[in-house]
């Protein structure tokens, strides 16, 4: 069975550009809508790119701001200035 990298975000206006960036940058991502929340799953790795979020948001955005809309996640985290990556790859 594939290992699933996953992130769950609030389903609100602040999270929407992040959700859209994830959908654009992660081919094969699967979406589970729950009341108030959205869970995004992908085999092995899921990436949030700062540039993709900024492009949709129209302002500068630090990956640490994700804390304001984050609900849950799965995978080993690698966070830096330009990305927030959840992965089971080594």
């Amino acid at each position: 069975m594939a290992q699933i990298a996953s992130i769950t975000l609030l389903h609100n206006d602040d999270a929407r550009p992040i959700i859209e960036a994830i959908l654009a940058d992660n081919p094969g991502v699967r979406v589970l809508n729950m009341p108030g929340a959205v869970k995004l799953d992908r085999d092995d790795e899921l990436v949030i790119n700062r540039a993709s979020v900024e492009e949709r948001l129209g302002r500068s955005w630090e990956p640490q701001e994700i804390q304001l809309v984050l609900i849950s996640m799965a995978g080993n985290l690698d966070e830096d200035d330009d990305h927030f990556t959840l992965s089971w790859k080594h």
Partner: protein
Amino acid sequence: MAPKKLGLKQRYAHMTRGLDWETSYQPMDAVYPFDSFEGIKIKDWSAWEDPFRLTMDAYWKFQGEKERKLYAVLDAFAQNNGQTGISDARYANVLKLFLTGVSPLEYQAHRGFAFAGRHLRGVGPRVACQMQSLDELRHVQTQIHTISHYNKYFDGISEFRHMHDRVWYLSVPKSFFDDARSAGPFEYMIAIGFAFEYVLTNLLFVPFMSGAAYNGDMSTVTFGFSAQSDESRHMTLGIEVIKFLLEQHPDNLPIVQKWVDKWFWRGHRVLGLVAMMMDYMLPKPVMSWKEAWEIYFTEAGGSLFTDLARYGLKVPKYADVATAEAEHISHQNWAIFYQYTHAAGFHTWMPDKAHLDWLSEKYPNTFDKYYRPRWEMWAEMEKQGKRFYNNALPQLCQTCQIPMGYTEPGDPTTIAFRCSEVDGETYHFCSDGCKDIFDGEPEKYAQSWLPVHQIFQGNCGGATVPDVLNWYRMNVGADNMDYVGSPDEKLWNEWHAGKVRDAV
């Protein structure tokens, strides 16, 4: 030329390293007396990594923002009489169970992480534990604030702190945390940081809180998701703890495996309460316990344990039993509370036909065969004025402290019953998982404060049920018994009659 801004990784290194020092007035082992007796071997504390790389200044910034958002919602909810817009007043009973059973655990976690942060001698985990300790304090405070609004209208809430230390079923979550906090700091980190936060809290704070949203409780979903955003950091700490211990020394593996097995099973038993909340207590259910278990344990836990296999760590013992129990646990727990509704601080009810049909659909293997007929019989007995109460005090499992109502793996018609003998005394267990935990540390669990034993020993206010309920500070006739006929129901019906009247 302006100095170049440091990158996130550099900032984190500067803000968390070099904060510690070698003590000189006292030897380090005297300053940190608890980080060696458990047998865990650490060669290099500096190998610790916090993948979130959160520094204290950023922590305050983000937490302050989360609080502002949360309290804006709480104010709006109160100002707009949000309590009248929930799906049904039955919903309020999940809040009663949450505040009496879960919120005090947040406070316990605050104390526990303060202790772990004090007693682990590496600076990386100390900083992470400090943040988590503050988070947990925030969680208990925001939960009390949120639910205090409901306390103005609904019964069963006001004595939550008093009840947590006394009421029979609340000893289940309470003893879980007492167990963790009376362990050493490393076991505490595996128990709460790894087994509870990483493997199990998703089940409480994601699908259940989504259920709160679906039932119109925008204040609870907001504190729930706000807390859960901290939990993501805690989960990362939990996974980091386990990787760190396993990388530090091969001798750590068997110790860690034993803790993972123990705390998985302990957590599974406690979460049976959440299973019941999701399957029975949300008037508009969102996801069955079984579905949530598949997503958050089978799928998410499967990915995690596949990853940890490279260290030699195995899937927790009895994970297969727990997965099989996902077909039964919510039904068996609801049956226990229904029978003992006179001694519970929240209301019970038999599900209506639409809800029974939902359960039949969600549990095709078990519900119609084992549980629906019982519910239909009990509903029929209610109609005939013969509502079924269990007036005997139940035997409790010595480890999880839940009444011995669970069934044998593979045989849902036979009660599971295990026992161990120590120093001429017999101790009883609901499962192999609970028996194994006791057998591993009988000196610890032989001392458990078991509510039923304590009642029989005369330590709970008296010899009769009314004496004990009085000692619980239960407002008899309002806090306990069925929803139908309760003051909560009367109030709700008045609100709704008022809405219809005003609309005409």
